[in-house]
């Protein structure tokens, strides 16, 4: 008992150190400006606060619309047990992304401008409107799940529950738009993005891969809450999510690879450049490793196998988004960009904050417990069926 307790304290110390560094970095950024606190420049205007916090963050929160679609639209009820944690993570993810954006925007207090002065030719405008409205949808979805036990909220919550399918469909529609518009951001820079990542189909790639990321992130969350709190979604359900993720990733891989063939870009894969190395790393983590695990029945029957596939998927997804926003852009930029310690500290702080919030939520919102009165199968039953 003492060993895990020590470990827990160790991570708490690490988290506290990161948060302190993040606070110092925050002070420097808002008092002395972006130039002081970051390594951004005229030649490299978007760093990890966009590439990691926003572009990757929104993708990792894609589980929200993916899982609700699976459960409510496609009516696969055995996945109902993971709706709560994924909707929570998605809601938390979007709130954190919106907050993190304040660090990056030069005029953070005017973040609401796109809603009023919108330019509908801008992919950024589409992104801003969709992310804001989807955060609203997630807030409603989440409150219908979380506030049910408070007496005062019973009436509005019951109303929300009766219209839940509207929220779900709205959520999927808006998510389709803004997950893809993250890719649309880069459609306008054909000259600046490395050929391995530039494609006019980036919006479609981004949508598909966000679905994959949503599934793999759900698996990882489940693992973390098992490690941390002992709560757990049934393994066969998670194994099926890995299989689904692999199908999506393979479909994407074939489509993307066809694009490389048709546009005569295969040479870039074997030119030994830094970019080609990053591409192979991305694809290995994202497609190859999860696929190999998924097609070994023995491996996918173990907790470690399932979570290894999920982790690999999440890492591969991060690699992809960072490759598009950093590696591919670096290729044409005149300067080399390495994030400053302040940039790393702020991004890491947001990761820490999300862990803390998720931990609290698992503790206090009965995330992995099924509500009896909804008449769904219990976890055990669904697990048995899934096997």
């Amino acid at each position, binding site marked *: 008992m003492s060993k895990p307790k020590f470990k827990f304290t160790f991570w708490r110390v690490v988290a506290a150190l990161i948060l302190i560094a993040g606070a110092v970095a925050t002070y420097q950024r808002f008092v002395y400006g972006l130039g*002081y606190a970051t390594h951004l420049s005229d030649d490299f205007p978007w760093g990890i606060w966009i590439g990691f916090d926003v572009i990757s963050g929104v993708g990792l929160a894609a589980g929200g619309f993916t899982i609700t679609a699976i459960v409510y*639209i496609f009516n696969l009820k055995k996945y109902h047990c993971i709706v709560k944690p994924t909707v929570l993570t998605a809601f938390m993810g979007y709130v954190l992304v919106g907050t993190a954006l304040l660090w990056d925007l030069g005029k953070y207090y005017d973040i609401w*401008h796109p809603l009023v002065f919108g330019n509908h*030719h801008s992919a950024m405008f589409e992104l801003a409107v969709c992310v804001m409205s989807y955060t609203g949808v997630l807030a409603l979805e989440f409150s219908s799940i979380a506030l049910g036990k408070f007496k005062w909220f019973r009436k509005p919550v019951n109303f929300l529950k009766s219209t839940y399918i509207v929220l779900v469909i709205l959520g999927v529609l808006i998510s389709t738009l803004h997950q893809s518009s993250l890719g649309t951001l880069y459609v306008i820079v054909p000259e600046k993005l490395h050929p391995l990542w530039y494609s*006019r189909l980036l919006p479609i790639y981004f949508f598909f891969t966000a679905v994959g990321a949503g599934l793999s992130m759900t698996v990882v969350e489940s693992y973390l809450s098992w490690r941390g709190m002992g709560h757990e979604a049934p393994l066969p359900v998670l194994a099926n999510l890995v299989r689904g993720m692999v199908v999506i990733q393979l479909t994407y891989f074939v489509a993307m690879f066809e694009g490389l063939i048709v546009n005569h870009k295969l040479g870039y894969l074997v030119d030994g450049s830094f970019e080609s190395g990053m591409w192979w790393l991305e694809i290995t983590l994202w497609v190859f490793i999860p696929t190999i695990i998924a097609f070994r029945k023995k491996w996918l029957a173990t907790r470690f196998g399932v979570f290894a596939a999920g982790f690999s998927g999440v890492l591969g997804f991060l690699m992809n988004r960072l490759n598009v926003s950093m590696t591919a852009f670096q290729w044409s930029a005149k300067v080399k960009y390495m994030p400053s310690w302040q940039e790393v500290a702020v991004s890491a702080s947001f990761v820490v904050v999300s862990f803390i919030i998720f931990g609290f939520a698992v503790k206090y919102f009965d995330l992995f417990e099924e509500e009896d009165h909804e008449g769904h199968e219990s976890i055990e039953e669904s697990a048995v069926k899934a096997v």
Partner: protein
Amino acid sequence: MPKAMLVDITECVGCGICAKACKKEQKLPGPVGKKRDWANYTVLRPEGDDVYVRELCMHCTDPTCASVCPVSALHKTPEGPVVYDFDLCIGCRYCMMACPFGVPKYEWQKPIPRIRKCIMCYDTRIKKGLPTACSQACQEDGGGATYFGERADLLAEAHRRIKENPDTYDNHVYGEHEVGGTNVLFLAPKNKPFKSLQFNTKLPDEALPELTWQVLNKIPVIIPVWATFLTGMWWLNNRKVEVEENQGSKKIRDEKLEGGDDE
């Protein structure tokens, strides 16, 4: 009628009076720099052999920066200049990411930074029908390489020069077609064509905003289709469950009825 500038690189003597005049007109602090930044809207880049290239905003006909700006803080005026409104700007720097010429610069050192770029002296001169500060200084006190006028007139003049002196000029007017055309045009010497002068000669003739628009204009088409499909799938899948349940209860009813018959 959109105003424009023509820079004849063969006539530039490298005096740099354009950059000085710009600093004075736009009240930019510090001495003239070597690179464009927040305090230098235009600079001269020496390319050897007494050849100097002016760097400034190209004032595209269909500007990429204005199309990507989520709040229209950058916009194209009917007179030709692409101008900036700090009050609207949110500081996302997408314009800097997207500009094919790397024009918009940022006040990185300030807590609340502005985007800085050449605005073709819009407020102080163009609105009043005056030529830009750089072109006036160049014509009156410099080598006379930067011309100001109607875009159509300057384009005709550029082609006339190439046609009359084919041995002097590279046979290309930079900015005539690049990314849909620009309101700043360049002529290069024959022995130092645009490619050797660090001009991006691989830019498409198509305006870049069209690339994004080809994606965004699909949205109104996709939403109803996707919404119908999702709602339909929900209806189908839930109906399946309902039917199964009803069959179950029907079975029970039938069994009961049968049981009743037996009795």
